[in-house]
């Protein structure tokens, strides 16, 4: 999350919004956003509706959710999909930003 915060401006420059979705409730989101001063959109999903819709996996042994990232382009198509295989399996922001660069360049052609 801190990596994303550090690079948030890079996402904005590439005309992208960052949306975090998690199973915590509204109060947990609000508290964390205030504490960390986070600029992106935070969506609590305590009923797990979107988490299930997007197939975020649960690690039953570690009692945690595996991280997942999906980049949806301006037309609504999923252009990048990464499902983490462990709690620390998170792609570097550079990978996401490079993909956004490709999307933007593709639009100009």
């Amino acid at each position: 999350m801190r990596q994303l915060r550090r690079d948030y401006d890079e996402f904005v420059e590439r005309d992208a919004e960052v949306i975090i979705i998690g199973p915590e409730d509204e109060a947990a989101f609000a508290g964390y956003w205030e504490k960390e001063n986070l600029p992106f959109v935070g969506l609590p999903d305590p009923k797990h509706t979107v988490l299930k819709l997007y197939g975020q996996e649960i690690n039953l042994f570690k009692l945690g959710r595996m991280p997942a990232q999906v980049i949806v382009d301006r037309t609504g198509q999923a252009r990048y999909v990464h499902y983490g295989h462990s709690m620390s399996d998170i792609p570097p922001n550079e990978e996401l930003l490079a993909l956004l660069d490709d999307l933007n360049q593709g639009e100009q052609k």
Partner: protein
Amino acid sequence: MSNRITLNAQAPDFALKDFHGQTVRLADYRGRKHVALVFNRGFT
């Protein structure tokens, strides 16, 4: 065990309220911005 999103296919739309109570839909961004959806592994 779960649905997985297919690359280069339409991403399923959804609507959730943010922690200010405002409804956010994926479709709200269509034609305007790209969206990086990050599924959280928990706040640490």
